[in-house]
């Protein structure tokens, strides 16, 4: 194991390549359906996907539009002129013998992504992002002397986003991967469904004691933020251990074994590829005029960075804001940010709302035993009225939670939420006379505790408040109960 002391002597340098599957109906170069999730093998294919002689690929304009949106999401602009190239290698899941990609003039040059790690902001620069066609999927049945190839995914449009080596820790790697996810999701350029491989990360890691970069390894095909962080962590430790033993790092491609939480060598340097890039003669260049580019810019929705700015006045911590940003896109039918935005002028309420979302509704929805039926409009009403009841001391914060989770499961709201809360026994009694009766009963029933309070042992008052709450079946306003107890025990 690498001790912290040794680890601290090394500078960690990480660059990440991310393949994002674009949200199109059809493939990048063929008018064939793109949704391979539930499709039988080789049902989404064409002569173009199979690389038949004479087939002419034609570029999907929607893929260009989505890549252009992604450019703005990456704090960049789409390149006015980009071209396609062939990248050659042989593999059974690549029938053409080359991948069509953008090597020399990509659709996005430059850009940046802002991340937060331990509450501190950091900017990771983007080298480039380019369009390319995905390969097919090969599987290798255990024990068989053959492999099986399914070309449904062949030709699916990908945007490969390449970062500068600006990332300096596994935690930053994770934060970057997560922020890319949010950016792609908010820009609506990808379903960004990690489970289905819509975003795949290749993590390049090197360590060095000096300013000169060390030999790097590339761990490919990570499909979760957690595996990005764990694989980077594993590589950092593995490389430091090797160097500390006086050994050297082999520049190589590695895979990630999620079960063992380890990276493993996949392809040594001796097999390093010579891709022989050449311009793709079948796809004419893409030229985007300034009208097109400004139309795309105007179509951009509010992005995570802007939401953070909007919410910044509420005093939420970074992780709360991230939970809200995640929840907003986890289920597109449920609004959080928009409800918050409408209430930003009432800061105290907006903050209460954010806390209720983060602490009550989002965890409530995450539990699959719960079903939320209430519309966004209904939810907004519930929160507004619950806040009013709490403000009037009619509802304790724990009963507010019960009321909210109860009402979320309703399809239609009761006519009066206050009346409903009262019927459910949630409303606390703030009627002094009524509570006073209970207080007197409790003092009589607990002479020892009452005596302790009279003698200045204020610890005992908590016990008595508890007894009042119990006797009132939880309805007494605890603040008022304590006040009355003090009055009677002076």
């Amino acid at each position, binding site marked *: 194991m690498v001790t912290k002391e040794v680890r601290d002597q090394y500078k960690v340098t990480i660059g990440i390549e991310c393949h994002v599957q674009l949200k199109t*109906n059809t493939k990048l170069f063929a008018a064939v359906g793109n949704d391979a999730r539930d499709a039988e093998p080789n049902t989404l294919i064409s002569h173009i996907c199979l690389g038949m002689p004479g087939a002419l690929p034609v570029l999907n304009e929607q893929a260009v539009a989505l890549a252009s949106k992604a450019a703005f999401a990456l704090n960049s602009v789409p390149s006015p002129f980009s071209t396609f190239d062939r990248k050659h290698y042989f593999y059974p899941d690549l029938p053409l013998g080359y991948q069509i990609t953008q090597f020399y003039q990509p659709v996005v040059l430059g850009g940046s992504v802002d991340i937060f790690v331990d509450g501190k902001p950091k900017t990771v620069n983007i080298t480039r992002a380019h369009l390319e066609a995905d390969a097919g999927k090969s599987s290798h049945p255990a024990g068989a002397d053959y*492999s099986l190839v399914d070309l449904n995914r062949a030709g699916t449009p990908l945007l490969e986003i390449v970062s500068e080596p600006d990332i300096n820790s596994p935690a930053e790697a994770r934060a970057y991967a997560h922020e890319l996810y949010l950016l792609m999701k908010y820009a609506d350029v990808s379903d960004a469904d990690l489970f289905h491989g819509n975003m795949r990360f290749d993590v390049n890691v090197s360590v060095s004691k000096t300013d000169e970069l060390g030999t790097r390894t590339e761990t490919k095909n990570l499909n979760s933020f957690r595996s990005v962080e764990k694989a980077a962590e594993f590589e950092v430790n593995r490389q430091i251990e090797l160097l500390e033993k006086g050994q050297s790092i082999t520049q190589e491609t590695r895979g990630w074994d999620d079960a063992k939480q380890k990276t493993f060598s996949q392809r040594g340097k001796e097999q390093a590829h010579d891709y022989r890039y050449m311009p793709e003669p079948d796809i004419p260049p893409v030229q985007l005029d300034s009208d097109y580019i400004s139309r795309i810019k105007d179509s951009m929705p509010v992005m995570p960075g802007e939401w953070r700015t909007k919410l910044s006045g509420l005093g939420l911590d970074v992780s709360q804001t991230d939970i809200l940003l995640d929840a907003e896109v986890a289920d597109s039918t449920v609004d959080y940010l928009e409800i918050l935005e409408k209430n930003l002028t009432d800061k105290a309420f907006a903050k209460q709302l954010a806390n209720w979302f983060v602490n009550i509704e989002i965890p409530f929805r995450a539990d699959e035993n719960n079903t939320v039926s209430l519309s966004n409009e209904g939810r907004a009403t519930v929160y507004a009225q619950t806040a009013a009841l709490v403000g009037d001391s009619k509802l304790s914060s724990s009963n507010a939670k019960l009321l909210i989770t109860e009402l979320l499961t309703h399809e239609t709201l009761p006519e009066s939420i206050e009346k409903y809360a009262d019927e459910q026994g949630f409303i606390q009694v703030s009627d002094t006379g009524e509570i006073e009766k209970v207080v007197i009963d409790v003092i009589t029933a607990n002479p020892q505790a009452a005596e302790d309070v009279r003698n200045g042992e204020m610890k005992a008052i908590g016990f008595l408040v508890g007894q009042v709450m119990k006797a009132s079946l939880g309805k007494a306003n605890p603040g008022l109960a304590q006040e009355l107890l003090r009055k009677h025990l002076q």
Partner: protein
Amino acid sequence: MADLTREDILQLARLAKLELTDEEIKKFQNELGDILGYVEKLSEVDVKGLKPTTQVTGLVNVMRNDEIKPYQADQQALLKNLPDRQGNNIKVRRVL
């Protein structure tokens, strides 16, 4: 241009997934050397100030709508061309 080395040819053959006999290697050392020599003549042209050419058609923005459209050869016709299959999967020599 001088002949290519034996290693050059073997590297090219490996990239092209070709197996060459010794005779062929010798032949290609010579032939490919000649071809490269011929192409190298192009480097004599002064291209200062010219943008690299990626296309000769002059076309730009040849794109299609993002709509599914049937092609003449349907899926079954395409699969008929496969040398070997298992169900709908393409069967190939084991690669891993």
